[in-house]
């Protein structure tokens, strides 16, 4: 009973059946004929002669008249029997009976994947998933396109979490720790569930139980925890390293309710972000990215995004206008903007008191151009009700963070955005984590008020600031029970490890925000002797026989979940269906309900604003901790895909680092990769420096989530733990704005990047234009080349595949890279080999800086095989291993490749990847289960590259053929396209006049081919990027070596 058995077939086997098993194991559920059922001698005989082609049988039939056999047939027989002997020698047949897939589950067709709805939650953001399952094992995670919460987009971490399921280092059984008295040692041994349950229940009965967990998006799990609380009187404490309690508290102070609202970037024409990395890591970055891009699809009406930031985040990189600030200036920015609006005589009716007085000259305090600053404020006002101001994330957790949130709320209310673009009703009500909860818990632990602490998927011993003294407090807790899937930093200090299932092995549900109810289906039966946390709680209550009935009635969490759904969710979402139909629909679609909307403006509590007084003093160097898109809070640090994924902005892999500006590096005499000692108060770390163009000169920005010590073989000692620098000041845990001492520590460390050069060198690679340029000329800044050929080129009579990539939508989030890696079995090579230039990604995102280096702007460009019509790689391969298909694909024949690498040399885009070593050999079991069987795992010595997901093209064509219809545009979606939250990537048939791609190829003025003048005739068109910043690009002579210099129309530079 140690797993939630969702295999109903197996569940039906009762004890009776087990005990009365026949001696000879034979599955009697199915039989081939009545003869078999009765097992008659005739049947036995027919069995031996069943395989008519057996050479043995043929021989016996012809005994005595061998002269009938012609030589040729004799040889054939010889060959066959040789082959059989050979096979018998090679194949290790198990002695026990093995069962082929004869009793094929109803829904499984071998070779055809199934897709199941599920969810993923990373602590802040949730996703509805549609997980691909092949022969019972999940192989690829993609979003559920029908899910109203994320509309088919999944973050890099959500997609990569698949690899966690197959992580060989995942715990495979319950464990207990053989502590000495002071608990200084760490000797965990595996134990049995019976033993563990018995001991745990004994401890639980002593009372004073606390459960510490991360955010719980699941109503059913929350119900189990609450029911458990009723059973044992336990208290539930919710804490995440990345908490959004600043927002919730700010909302409470401003409007009286503690919610994390939803921000509608889609509806906002003017977006101002104060260090809120809403495109990368803040709250719901993937959904926000999608909304944000949707608000910019129509160039004429696109939104404007202004970023004031202290870390060069993804949001900063995408901003139309970017202002660099330091964390202590965040409040000044918001107050300054309010002041500008109020000073212009707007926003009457909201009392500001004297709060604005210190911010009269905010622009000067910030060192920004007053005109430009005023323009931002006026743009906000002119878009009142259609704008949004956001602030948040680790970078804003300064001493002023509470006031910052109030000021932002005030500004949104002033602009009339509340209820329109800031929707509390649509908020994420289950993001309950807070540092206050944690502080309170530690206090109780120190008082000895916590006898038993159950920790569920939370890692305070890694991510919590040492100032709170959690480790010391934990020693005062009699019994620590850890429910997680890995032996991490916290698990090592627990008495019992009630090993949890992987997310993909667990039933669950989720309510990411009000109104939407999602189901979380398991994709695979538990691989090991693990048990879900929910079932553990239920089991303990059952053994102790305490608690509400539903907690102790059900044998599995699945049953509990069903009952819970029936009780609490069914009535809300039934819409006339009976429960079975409702349940089936829920499983199939993955969710029910719709997002709550509207709500109207809330009244702002005036005194919250008028009391604002800036607390953070400016210091010469200020700390700004931030999250990276790939690693986030560090939970998934053992997933190699994420470490190998280049940071979207810095393009550095496998490390974190202290970002300093170019000027700061000059002052400190630092070169890229020089080790620096970063000291905050009495805490210090030594970390390599990264020189970040465009960063504020007085900021030291370091990503958290690295430097894990017990993440596993992959994640251990990658980077430095920056959580150490977070500090408690006045009972608040601060991550930014703290004064930092930074000095050269001596020594050098190799920071490895996948991108060799940051400037486009004046070449036409990423074309950018401004909104003013675009008004003048829709083809602005695209230099078209006159190309011609003396031969007619390939003819494509059937399909001709092509792709368009809208650089105006692409934010560089890198979701496509992980999707491609998962879909196409792309190997991870590690830091050392990336340093040598051996990364394997088939799609990569190039990031170039433009403008002057001190205020560098960034542009992104996904690059993959361009599937050229005149492919330079094809002509030079001596063995014809890369060839042109009749549908325009540039195909790579791995079997034929001998590995001369000439194709790579001749590829102008350098998209080909070579297998320098036998990477496939390094795939440790059971990691091989994550491989996509439709894509060859490439051996050593062959070239590989993007195939346009040729396996998906085949599937799409086959489906259309079997349904007897023509292929429709959108039938075939390649992996990167599916993953792209902004639909920047579109794949389709260029021979279909109505396809989206052919329309772009024919008529889109912003479309251009990369390196068009080289006349490789790529099958990809890029759409130029438009910056909505009201500037005009100076005309650029062709062949001019200089960069696109942007000059403002009236002097002031931004």
């Amino acid at each position, binding site marked *: 009973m140690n797993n939630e058995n969702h295999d109903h077939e197996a569940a039906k086997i009762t004890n009776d059946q087990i005990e009365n098993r026949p001696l000879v194991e034979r599955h009697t559920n199915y039989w081939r004929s009545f003869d078999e059922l009765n097992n008659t001698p005739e049947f036995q005989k027919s069995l031996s002669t069943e395989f008519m082609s057996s050479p043995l049988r043929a021989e016996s039939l012809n005994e005595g008249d061998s002269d009938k056999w012609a030589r040729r047939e004799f040889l054939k027989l010889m060959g066959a029997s040789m082959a059989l002997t050979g096979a018998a020698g090679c194949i290790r047949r198990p002695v026990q009976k093995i069962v082929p897939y004869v009793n094929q589950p109803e829904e499984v067709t071998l070779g055809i994947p199934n897709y199941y709805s599920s969810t993923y939650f990373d602590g802040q953001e949730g996703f509805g998933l549609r997980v691909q399952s092949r022969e019972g094992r999940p192989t690829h995670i993609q979003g559920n396109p029908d899910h109203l919460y994320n509309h088919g987009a999944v973050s890099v971490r959500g997609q990569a979490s698949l690899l966690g399921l197959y992580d060989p280092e995942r715990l495979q059984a319950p464990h207990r720790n053989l502590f000495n008295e002071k608990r200084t040692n760490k000797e965990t041994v595996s134990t049995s569930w019976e033993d563990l349950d018995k001991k745990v229940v004994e401890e639980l009965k002593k009372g004073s139980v606390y459960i510490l967990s991360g955010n719980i998006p699941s109503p059913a799990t929350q119900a189990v925890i609450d029911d458990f609380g009723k059973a044992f009187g336990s208290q539930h404490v919710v804490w995440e390293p990345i908490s959004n309690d600043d927002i919730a508290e700010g909302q409470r102070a401003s409007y009286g309710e503690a919610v994390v609202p939803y921000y509608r970037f889609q509806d906002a024409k003017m977006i101002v972000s104060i260090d809120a990395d809403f495109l990368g890591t803040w709250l719901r970055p993937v959904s926000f990215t999608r909304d944000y891009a949707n608000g910019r699809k129509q160039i004429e009406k696109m939104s404007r995004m202004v970023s004031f930031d202290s870390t060069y985040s993804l949001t900063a990189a995408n901003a139309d206008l970017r202002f660099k600030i330091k964390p202590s200036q965040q409040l000044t920015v918001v107050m300054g903007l309010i002041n500008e609006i109020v000073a212009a005589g707007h926003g009457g009716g909201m009392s500001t008191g004297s709060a604005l007085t210190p911010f009269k000259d905010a622009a000067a305090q910030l060192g920004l151009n007053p005109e430009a600053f005023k323009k931002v404020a006026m743009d906000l006002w002119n878009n009142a009700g259609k704008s949004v101001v956001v602030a948040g994330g680790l970078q804003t957790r300064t001493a002023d963070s509470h006031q910052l949130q109030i000021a932002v709320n005030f500004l949104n209310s002033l602009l009339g955005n509340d209820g329109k673009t800031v929707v509390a009703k649509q908020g994420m009500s289950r993001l309950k984590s807070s540092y206050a909860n944690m502080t309170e818990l530690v206090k109780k632990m120190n008082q000895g008020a916590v006898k038993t602490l159950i920790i569920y998927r939370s890692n305070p011993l890694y991510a919590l600031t040492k100032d709170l003294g959690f480790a010391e407090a934990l020693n005062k807790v009699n019994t620590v029970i850890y429910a997680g899937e890995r032996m991490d930093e916290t698990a090592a200090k627990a008495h019992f490890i009630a090993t949890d299932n992987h997310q993909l092995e667990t039933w669950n549900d989720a309510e990411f925000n009000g109104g939407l109810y999602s189901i979380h289906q398991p994709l695979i039966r538990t691989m090991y002797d693990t048990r879900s946390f929910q079932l553990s709680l239920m089991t303990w209550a059952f053994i102790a026989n305490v608690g509400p009935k539903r907690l102790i009635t059900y044998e599995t969490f699945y049953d509990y979940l069903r009952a819970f759904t029936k009780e609490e969710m069914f009535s809300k979402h039934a819409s006339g269906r009976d429960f079975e139909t409702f349940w089936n629909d829920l499983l199939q679609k993955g969710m029910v309900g719709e997002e709550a909307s509207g709500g109207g403006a809330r009244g702002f509590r005036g005194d919250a604003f008028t009391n604002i007084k800036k607390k953070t003093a400016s210091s010469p160097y200020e700390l700004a901790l931030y999250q990276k898109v790939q690693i986030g809070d560090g939970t998934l640090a053992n997933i190699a895909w994420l470490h190998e994924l280049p940071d979207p902005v810095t393009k550095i892999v496998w490390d974190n680092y202290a970002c300093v500006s170019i000027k700061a590096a000059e002052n400190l005499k630092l070169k890229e990769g020089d080790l620096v000692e970063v000291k905050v108060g009495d805490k210090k770390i030594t970390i390599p420096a990264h020189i970040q163009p465009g960063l504020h000169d007085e900021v030291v920005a370091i990503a958290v989530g690295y430097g894990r010590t017990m993440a596993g073989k992959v994640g251990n000692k990658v980077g430095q733990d920056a959580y150490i620098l977070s500090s408690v000041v006045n009972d608040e845990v601060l991550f930014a704005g703290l004064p930092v001492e930074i000095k050269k520590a001596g020594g050098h460390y190799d920071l490895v990047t996948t991108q060799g050069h940051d400037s486009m060198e004046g070449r036409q690679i990423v074309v950018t234009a401004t909104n003013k340029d675009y008004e003048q000329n829709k083809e602005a800044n695209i230099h078209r080349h006159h190309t011609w050929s003396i031969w007619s080129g390939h003819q494509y009579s059937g399909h001709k595949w092509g792709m368009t990539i809208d650089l105006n939508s692409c934010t560089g989030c890198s979701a496509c890279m992980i999707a491609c890696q998962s879909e196409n079995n792309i190997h991870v090579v590690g830091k050392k080999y990336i340093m040598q230039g051996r990364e394997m990604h088939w799609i990569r995102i190039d990031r170039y800086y433009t403008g002057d280096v001190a205020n560098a702007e960034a542009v992104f460009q996904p690059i993959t095989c361009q599937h050229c019509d005149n492919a330079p790689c094809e002509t*030079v391969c001596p063995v014809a291993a890369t060839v042109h298909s009749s549908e325009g694909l540039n195909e790579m024949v791995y079997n034929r490749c001998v590995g001369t*690498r000439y194709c790579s040399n001749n590829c102008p*885009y350098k998209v080909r990847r070579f297998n320098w070593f036998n990477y496939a050999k390094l795939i440790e079991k059971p990691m091989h289960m994550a491989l996509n069987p439709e894509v060859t795992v490439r051996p050593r*010595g062959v070239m590989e590259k993007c195939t346009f997901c040729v396996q998906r093209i085949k599937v799409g064509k086959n489906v259309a053929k079997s349904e007897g219809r023509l292929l429709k545009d959108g039938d075939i979606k390649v992996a990167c396209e599916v993953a792209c939250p902004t639909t920047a990537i579109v794949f389709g048939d260029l021979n279909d006049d109505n396809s989206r791609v052919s329309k772009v190829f024919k008529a889109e003025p912003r479309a251009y081919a990369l390196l068009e003048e080289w006349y490789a005739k790529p099958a990809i068109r890029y759409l130029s990027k438009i910056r909505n910043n009201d500037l005009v690009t100076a005309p650029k002579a062709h*062949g001019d070596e200089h960069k696109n210099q942007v000059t403002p129309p009236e002097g002031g530079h931004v």
Partner: protein
Amino acid sequence: MNSNPMRRVPLVLGNKTLKQITDDICEPVETIPSKGWMALFLGAKTLFIFYILTIAIVVSTGMGLLGVNHPVGWGTMIITFVFWVGIGHAGTLISAILFLFRQKWRTSVARSAEAMTVFAVMTAGIFPLIHTGRPWLDFWLFPYPNQRGPLWVNFRSPLLWDVFAISTYATVSTVFWFIGLIPDLATLKDRAKNKIRYMVYGALSLGWRGTAKNWSHYEMLYLILAGLSTPLVLSVHTIVSFDFAVSNLPGWHSTIFPPYFVAGAIFSGFAMVITLMSLMRIGFPKFKDYITIDHMEVMNKIIMMTGLMVGYAYGSEFLIAWYSGNDYERYVFMNRAMGPYAWSYWIMIACNVFIPQIFWKRNFRRSIPVMFVVSIFVNIGMWFERFVITVTSLHRDFLPSNWGQYAWSMYDTAILCGSFGMFFTIFLLYLRVFPAISIAEIKPVMNVGKEDDNKGAH
């Protein structure tokens, strides 16, 4: 040296008799090797074994051990391949083209120069085979009837042309060299003092009896082979240059490559001949009468001239890059001279263009130590020329995001040094097994039996 300015300088010094010549030239083959030779051979052989081990490790582990990467897909192996193929050129040029032009001075150096060619091509020929990702499938590069369709090779690929060019060249130059050896092998057979020697050289000399008919056939065949070899001198390196010139990479895609490569090949080949001949003169002092300072001087003149030719090619590449107006090409050349690999570019320029110019001075042209040092510089310079062409073009091409550096590893060093071990092992063995100077050809260019006032050479 001689009083009559109209009189030609004798090609062989020391007033040798015919017997003396035979004795002198056969001596290295018929005596116990000196300590010097043994030391050199042991060194070269050790390096060669080391080379075989390195290749074994690379083949069994993967190309990733070398510095080749993305974007620099070709590295040490291709660079060193082109280097050795280039070396090979001087031999055929001396033995075939100079033969057709009746340049008598070629006789003293032709045998060894050609041996050098054969061994250099052997050394070079290994690289295209082992530089592939899956060397065990290299036979797929040959068009042969097969059961895969049959699946044919891609005749549009310059690499395939290369396969033909190199294999043809290797075959023809080996045959040409061997044919030239036949009369001398017969001489060795005749002089053999033990049975094994007699039988081995007897077999190798293919029944040569030195009859008039033998000579007549021999001369005809030699002439025909010389005729066949001559276009190969030009074609092989032309086709090797196609590997680069036919691709579309800035810095490679250039019509100047064929003549430029051929000039460079002759340049490096003669430098290697000078290196080897200098060593032979030291190792076998008697050879000084046959390989005279005059011979060396002539070759130094060729080095000087071909050095100027490659210098011209370097210059014209820049001119064309500028004149083409092609941004990418301009960048590649600016990057060569000023980028991260500028040091290699300037090593190349210094060694190939400037250093050989000291040969304008007669004393330097005729000084063995000077020419030895210069020849080493030229060899270094020509290796770097191929390094510059291969690496600097690849490392920064069209999209700056791709830019990268070559990740030189210790395996690159081992492969490069090891190839010299292979070459020298074979060459040192050759010196002890075959007559290093053609006995049969040297005798007709002697002044023996002629009057002192004989006008011109025979």
